[in-house]
C-alpha cells in the first residue's frame, strides 16, 4: 500500500468539520504581538475603532491557526508515517475575523500527486480548510501542501 493506491474518492470529500468557540480579542492580540506586528488595528481595540475596519481584526494569517480537528483522513495519514514536510501554503482571504466571530472549518483533500525531483519520487497532498463565519461569509481558504518522499526514495537516501 502506498500513495498511488489511495482511493481517489478521497478527493473533495469533507473529512472534518469543526466549529470553534467565539474568537476572543485576546487571542487575536496574542497572535499579532508574538509575530511582532506593530499596527494598532491588530493590537489595540480602542485604537482600532478609528482604523479601516472600524474595530479590531485578526492579522490576515491568523487563519492558519484554525486547522480543524482531524488533520487528515486516515487513509492518507497512514501513508504519512515516514514523516511528511510542510511544502507550502496558499491562503485566499475573505471577510476579516473580528472578536466574537464563530468560525467553522471544513476540510477536504483537493490534490494528490506525485513528482520526481533530484532526490527521487515525492508525493504531494493538498489539504484545504474552508473557513466561514457565523453569517456564512467566506473568511478564508487555506491550502496546505504536504510533501512525503516515497519509501523507495527514503531508503535510497540512507
Amino acid at each position, binding site marked *: 500500500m502506498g500513495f498511488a493506491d489511495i482511493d481517489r474518492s478521497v478527493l473533495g470529500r469533507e473529512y472534518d468539520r469543526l466549529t470553534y468557540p467565539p474568537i476572543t480579542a485576546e487571542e487575536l492580540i496574542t497572535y499579532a504581538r508574538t509575530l*511582532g*506586528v506593530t499596527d494598532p488595528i491588530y493590537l489595540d481595540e480602542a485604537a482600532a475603532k478609528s482604523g479601516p475596519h472600524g474595530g479590531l481584526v485578526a*492579522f490576515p494569517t491568523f487563519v492558519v491557526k484554525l486547522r480543524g480537528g482531524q488533520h487528515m483522513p486516515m487513509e492518507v495519514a497512514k501513508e504519512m508515517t515516514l514523516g511528511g514536510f*510542510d511544502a507550502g501554503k*496558499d491562503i485566499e482571504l475573505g471577510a476579516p475575523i473580528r472578536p466574537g466571530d464563530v468560525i467553522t472549518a471544513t476540510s477536504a483533500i483537493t490534490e494528490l500527486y506525485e513528482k520526481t525531483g533530484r532526490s527521487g519520487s515525492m508525493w504531494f497532498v493538498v489539504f484545504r480548510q474552508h473557513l466561514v463565519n457565523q453569517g456564512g461569509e467566506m473568511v478564508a481558504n487555506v491550502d496546505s501542501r504536504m510533501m512525503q518522499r516515497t519509501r523507495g526514495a527514503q531508503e535510497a537516501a540512507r
Partner: protein
Amino acid sequence: MSDHGATFDTVEPGDDLPAITVELARDYVKAHATAIGMPFARFTDEEGAKREGLPGQITPGNMTLALLARELLAWAPGGRVLRLGTTFRGLALAGSTVQLLGTVTEKDDERRTVECDVWMETAEGDRCVIGTATVQLP
C-alpha cells in the same frame, strides 16, 4: 510610495518593497509557535529539533508565511492581503537572521490591486521561502 506607505497611485511594477531584517531569535520563534498551537520540539527546542534529525530549532512554515504578510502590510499600511501563496524551499533556522524582500510585478487598475513576488532570504542568500501575493492598496 508616500510617507505613510504604499498607495495604489504611487506604486508601479518593478518597485521593490523595502527590505526588512528579522532576527529569528529562539524565544521569538518559540513564543509564536506556541501561540499558533504548534509547540512542537522542532519549533521550540534546539536539542529536541536535533533529536528529530534537524540541524536545530526551525521556524514554522506558518510563521514564515505570516512574516511575509507582515512585510506586505508594513509596506502598505491600510492595505488588504487578498491572497498569499508560499513555497517552503528550505529551513529558516531559529537563531539566524533573515531578510524579507519583495517586488511589485503587476497592477490591476480595475480592482486597485497589485501582484507581488515576496521571499525570505537567509544570510547566505538562499531563498528559503518564496511566494506571490495579491494586495489591495489604499
